[in-house]
């Protein structure tokens, strides 16, 4: 079974250990027309990249401060082993939202579903309410 019904839609792999920000960024990118695969860890990211049915085109990696080395190693590993996969590294949620917005500009839909700063505000509001 293919995971994505429309094979012409580019697939974005989001690697982010924080479920709140991962969900918000993933939702945003789906709104831009991308097929999105969510990985909660570098280990899950490797599984996704090696799975031909997921056919990852772009990896958006949100670097976790405490595991910086792992995430930079993942980016390097992807560039070496999957040179066709475009890698975007984001060191905080603002950068992740900005990277997502830049992907939207090149994405299947012509318009962004909403401003990327709304994603950041949404995440902050959710965290404040936790």
């Amino acid at each position, binding site marked *: 079974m293919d995971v994505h019904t429309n094979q012409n839609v580019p697939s974005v792999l989001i690697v982010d250990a924080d479920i709140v920000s*991962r*969900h918000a960024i993933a939702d945003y990118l789906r709104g831009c027309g991308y097929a999105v695969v969510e990985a909660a860890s570098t280990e899950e990211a490797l599984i996704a990249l090696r*799975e031909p049915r997921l056919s990852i085109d772009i990896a958006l990696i949100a670097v976790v401060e405490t595991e910086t080395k792992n995430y930079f190693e993942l980016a390097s590993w992807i560039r070496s082993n999957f040179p066709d996969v475009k890698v975007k590294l984001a060191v905080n949620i603002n950068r992740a939202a900005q990277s997502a*917005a830049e992907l939207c500009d090149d994405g299947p839909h012509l318009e962004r579903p909403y401003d990327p700063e*709304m994603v950041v505000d949404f995440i902050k509001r959710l965290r404040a309410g936790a």
Partner: protein
Amino acid sequence: MNLNTKQPRQQVTRSDRLYILVIEDELLIRTMLCEALRQEGYAVIEASNADDALGILAVIVPDLIVTDVRMPGSLDGTQLLAKLRKTNSTLPVIVTSGHLQHLADRTNDHTHFLSKPYTFETLINIVRRELRG
């Protein structure tokens, strides 16, 4: 890119869609299941373990939860269910596992136990039934 560009946009808030939280540690199963649910029109939140699920449950109450039993982390699916039921006795929960024989008789109005392997169609039918009522 100009982040300050002001254009009419929809608000990033909980939408009118029904929210389903899926907790599954196997990435491919989780991705396929969530995709199938999204195609049904549901908003889906993906969690890879119960700890992540508790993190999102602290900020968003979904309309339904689908959870695996055997997962890494501090809680398995049945422990998560027990914890959830202390504060919410009516939220529909579908528990999936390959080792459910001993749990099957615990299915009740709001908790379903679904044995693996299951078809997405079976699970989606339960979701539809639960969320219609």
